[in-house]
């Protein structure tokens, strides 16, 4: 048996350590460990409630709008303004947020994940992308084209950030989303500037990104059978002015699609460096215990009805195909049949890439609809006061999966703030029952050629882990 430690796992966000045991050509055990704790939930305590709106996005520089969205939803309920947000407020939040998704998916595919399949030798990027090669299956021409797309995608992701900034002020760490709506009225100039950039990005997604994902899937079909989990959870995302979410919330367990039950969420810390026991995040605590002997991670272990569920694009595409809008199911069906896979196979190392491509295409279309529905120069926010006592819950999906913020206000300041991020679910350690976290489970049983570095890297990156989110 060989014990292999991968630390740091590069080309992800943040500090992740993975230990695998390889025996008989297979990974027989995997442990995921979050290596950085900052304590943002503690830093928020005692602050003015609105500060959470700008401090929680700083949990993550890749998907800050996800935290801005969850914080706004939590504060909307706590401040009692949820019912009065103008139509423009919902639409602009969606546009700012969706632009962050497009940025995220393009960055993840080209710059974080794809280098695992490319050979950079002899190109200008050879120095930076140099890697221990193995199992490279692209033809030299395909390899060359994909490296050119790597460079092109840098520009596309930059443009997606311009989209965020047009209505959100700046990016990373946009400032547009606030409780009660957004800060800036949509003028004709901004709407036009947005539309033409979006068109360019959409053109790239439809004509280059999706084709590159399908090409990767065609060369590595075996990865649809690797890195599987199969139990899925989503909080849904993108409430339209009717408040219906474009991506519906729900879960898939034991083959059954169920609506979301918020009371089914609990966080455990049996193998995490924290004191305390399991509990609902409404009451949960963050009390670091860096010397706890049986612990091996700064990530807590959230469980849904006692089980470790995968969150992210596979969950969303699966659930939206069952419960979401008809045009989503149609688009997803077309791409799944092109890749010759079923919905169930989305929860796999290759399926997650395809699921991201499906939702990026769908969102880019939907963004044009939202843009057209804006009332130019119309109202965007409702004023609010800060109550002395209140509670709030903000649930949304982030690009990487289910994200929740829970807060309580006492005497006009934050008395409680808990965050459960997508990677907290996916990269969680074992729990009290010894159940592995989803990434651990996805790795265990994987056949490997050598020390497993290559296969483990590909599988871990397919989840697009974000460690700054997983441990705040």
């Amino acid at each position, binding site marked *: 048996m060989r014990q292999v430690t991968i630390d740091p796992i590069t080309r992800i966000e943040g*500090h992740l350590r993975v230990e695998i045991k390889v025996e008989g050509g297979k990974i027989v055990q995997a442990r995921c460990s979050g290596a950085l704790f900052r304590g943002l939930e503690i830093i928020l305590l005692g602050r003015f409630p609105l500060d959470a709106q700008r401090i929680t996005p700083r949990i993550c520089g890749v998907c800050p709008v996800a935290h801005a969205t969850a914080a706004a939803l939590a504060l909307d309920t706590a401040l009692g303004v949820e019912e009065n947000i103008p139509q423009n407020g919902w639409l602009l939040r969606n546009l700012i947020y969706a632009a962050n998704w497009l940025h995220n998916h393009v960055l993840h595919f080209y710059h974080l994940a794809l280098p695992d399949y490319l050979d950079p030798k002899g190109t200008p990027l050879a120095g930076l992308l140099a890697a221990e090669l193995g199992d490279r299956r692209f033809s030299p021409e395909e390899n060359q084209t994909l490296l050119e797309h790597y460079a092109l995608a840098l520009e596309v992701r930059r443009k997606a950030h311009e989209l965020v900034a047009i209505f959100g002020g700046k990016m990373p760490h946009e*400032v547009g989303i606030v409780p009660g709506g957004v800060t800036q*009225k949509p003028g004709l100039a901004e709407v036009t500037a947005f539309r033409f950039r979006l068109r360019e990005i959409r053109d790239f997604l439809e004509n280059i990104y999706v084709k590159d994902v399908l090409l990767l899937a065609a060369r590595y079909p075996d990865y649809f059978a690797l890195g599987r989990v199969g139990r899925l959870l989503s909080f849904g995302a993108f409430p339209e002015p009717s408040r219906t979410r474009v991506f519906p919330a729900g879960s898939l367990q034991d083959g059954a699609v169920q609506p979301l039950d918020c009371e089914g969420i609990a966080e455990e810390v049996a193998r995490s460096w924290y004191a305390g026991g399991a509990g609902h995040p409404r009451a949960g605590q963050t009390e670091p215990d860096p010397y706890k002997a049986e612990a091996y991670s700064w990530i807590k272990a959230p469980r849904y009805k006692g089980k470790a569920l995968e969150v992210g694009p596979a969950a969303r595409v699966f659930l939206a195909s069952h419960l979401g809008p008809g045009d989503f199911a149609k688009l997803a069906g077309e791409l799944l049949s092109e890749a010759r896979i079923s919905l169930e196979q989305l929860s796999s190392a290759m399926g997650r890439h395809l699921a991201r491509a499906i939702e990026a295409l769908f969102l880019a279309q939907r963004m044009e609809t939202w843009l057209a529905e804006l009332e130019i120069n119309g109202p965007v926010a409702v004023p609010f006061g800060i109550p002395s006592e209140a509670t709030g819950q903000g649930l949304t999906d982030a690009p990487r999966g289910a994200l929740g913020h829970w807060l309580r206000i006492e005497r006009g300041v934050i008395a409680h703030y808990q965050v459960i991020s997508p990677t907290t679910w996916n990269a969680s350690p074992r729990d009290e029952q010894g159940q592995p976290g989803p990434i651990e489970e996805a790795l265990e049983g994987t056949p490997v050629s050598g020390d497993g570095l290559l296969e483990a890297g590909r599988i871990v990156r397919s989840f697009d882990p974000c460690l700054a989110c997983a441990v705040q």
Partner: protein
Amino acid sequence: MSETRAQAVVWFQAAGCTGCSISLMNADYPNLKNLLLDELVPGKALILRFHATLMGLTGQPALEVLERVREEEAGAYLLVVEGAIPTGEDGRFGRVGDIPMAERVRELALRSAGVVALGTCAAYGGIPAGAPNPTSCVGVGEFFRREGIGIPVINVPGCPPHPRWFVETVAQLIFNPSAIGQLDEVGRLRSVYPGLIHENCPRRADFDVGRFAASFGEAGCLLKLGCKGPYTSSRCPTHRWNGGVNWCIEAGHPCLGCCEPEFPDFPAPLFRKVRAEDAAAFYRRNLCAR
């Protein structure tokens, strides 16, 4: 044609959110590709040896790159630190390859030619050092003072910093290293952080006539919503963000003072008006220093 000299760069991420790296990827002229592949100033190009978010290698082979650079390019490479340094509990709050981040930064810094502390976390502690600073995070400069490390540090604060502030700072460093003498009292290059937002703010006319926004989405100066523009040194109003499409105050949001050492605590919450007497101190530091 004269030869291009390569300036090796090691980019080390500590207690942060990767937002500084992502912001640098938003650089336009020069863009990231230019920064990676072309001469930044005549005769000199950057060569990025280590960056955990971008590099091909992973795990132990990636860490070996750090060792190699430390041995083979001692005294020559530029160290960029992103994120604060967690110093609490023997470094257990943040480790890379099982070694505390603080230890890694010390080792890398001691053999470097100099350090750029990128972002408010690396410069001053920033977000993780917000009260009560649960992990005892400090900025690189403070860490060096405590440890008696004499390597020069240049701060490029911002949460995150605008890509131009990094590019201009590094360009000056490799073009004219004597620029290092021109730091302000909080360790920034004066030319990169030359004056207050309030001086160039498009809402300044509203301020002058006393027209203040009382809630989000309203016209007027944002002072009463907590704007820190009168005490924050940055070129946001003139550089604007993301290809120049917008920036905080233009989008109707008060400046958070994200470039200042007091961010995010300040003497008042982010959305409360800072008291005049507290303001005076920031003002003196940022304006009278010129």
